[in-house]
């Protein structure tokens, strides 16, 4: 076949239908999208490193070894738990916002400082 399909352009093609934006400023949402794509690639790199480390424990490593590596169930769970931990780290800002939802009147340090200066 002579057809050349260019995945570099086509993989990221826009689906039919106008894209919704949610954040107050479109630019912020674009930066968030870039950030999460980078976050994805870091997770990919970490999984690859984990594979290399596990293989190195037993022998020298070839690229084929890495490509064909399949973690045991326990190893897969350790790796899955790492991604959970990783997401908890990078998305911390949302967790803290949620935890603060029932404390809308949580005083700031400045406000407490004013109080303590008088007590």
């Amino acid at each position, binding site marked *: 076949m002579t*057809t050349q399909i260019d995945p570099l352009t086509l993989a990221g093609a826009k*689906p039919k239908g106008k894209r919704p934006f*949610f954040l107050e400023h479109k630019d912020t949402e674009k930066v968030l999208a870039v950030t*999460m794509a980078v976050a994805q690639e870091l997770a990919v790199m970490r999984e690859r490193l984990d594979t290399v480390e596990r293989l190195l424990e037993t022998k020298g490593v070839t690229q084929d070894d890495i490509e064909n590596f399949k973690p045991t169930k326990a190893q897969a769970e350790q*790796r899955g738990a790492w991604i959970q*931990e990783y997401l908890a780290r990078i998305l911390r800002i949302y967790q803290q916002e*949620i935890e603060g939802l029932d404390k809308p009147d949580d005083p700031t340090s400045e406000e407490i400082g004013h109080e303590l200066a008088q007590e």
Partner: protein
Amino acid sequence: MSNTKAYDGPPDYRNVGIHAMSPETSHDEKARFNFLAHMNRHLASNILPGIKTAYETRVKPNNPSPNHRNQVRKALLEDSLFQHWSALRRGTMELRQQAGRWVTLRQAEELNARAEEMTKGDPRLILDPNLVLPNYLAKIDHHCMPGSYHDELVPGDVTGAANYDVGIFVTTGGGLGRYSDGGGKAVVAWVKKNRPDFAPKRILDIGGGLGQNVVPIAQTFPDAEVVCVDTGAPVLRYGLARAKSMGVENITFVQANAEDLFMFENGSFDWVQSTMFLHETSVKSMPRIMKESHRLLAKDGLVMHVEQPQYGPDMPLYEQAIRDWDAFYNNEPFWTKMHELDLDQWMVDAGFSRDELVHCSVAAVVDTTLFPEHANDDYEDYGRKAAWHIIGAEKKAA
């Protein structure tokens, strides 16, 4: 090191079932799917519950008496946490599509050649190049999948179907099982339990896509003649090759519009099935699809439509609004209207009597040693959880 809590995350992508049409995936491509499955799980398990709290504590007080889910959704759109959750959820779907398309497009020639080799001259692939695409598919790419089920980049293209297949794991975090067939297996389990003597000779799956949900039905009834109908040639080509490579030889894949299945005679099927299909149609096409289902069904036959639960009066407006998210922000435009319809009435309008109707709930049937089972858990990803309702009917009169 990691915490000691029992692991409850998605399984590793490497547990996904492989068949002859499966695209090759490198180490890093698998890792990308792992990350994205986790991302969806995190958004559902860790952030979505916070949206509910945000709604109760700071959205609802300013909008105390909404009388429609759209009012709830519009109020939520003003909330920062909902905005970010939405931006991340949309962005994750876009990353998933890009990741899957990268995998399939970089090996397009090999995949297309393999499909050609496995289906060429096979009478079980019946394509209609003159088929007019229904509006509901032509106007938008469902779930942000560029090219939808039908676009062909080159003649004989199957890459769109391969992308759907290779990445569906991501959206449900493995909730659909090893071959993404948890819906089909759920229907089989329901039939085996509730209609143990049912022995269909001909089975029709409408809007069946690449046949992932009809394969377990065909496997359960190996002597039945099974037909999978869809409008997209790529999914049908891919579907036949996939089914054959899994040792399933009794499915014919037919390119047709479910609104007009003129090629089949009245009463010629004992079972008419649709699985997560109706919500991708339209208010004008759905009655025609239901009437066709009634026409094609034989006496004592069974029709079953699998969907997410309807928005009944008992469902809180908040839940309806969250369930509507995919309609507005993930290119599932008919989802919102479809879920408010009186489906019983539509089935009656299609020709069934009320005492012929069947209602039940099912959850994905998966290999629970490796995949998450959502039958009895508290996990909820409104609209995407692998647990559904069935609206169906048994035809008592000829």
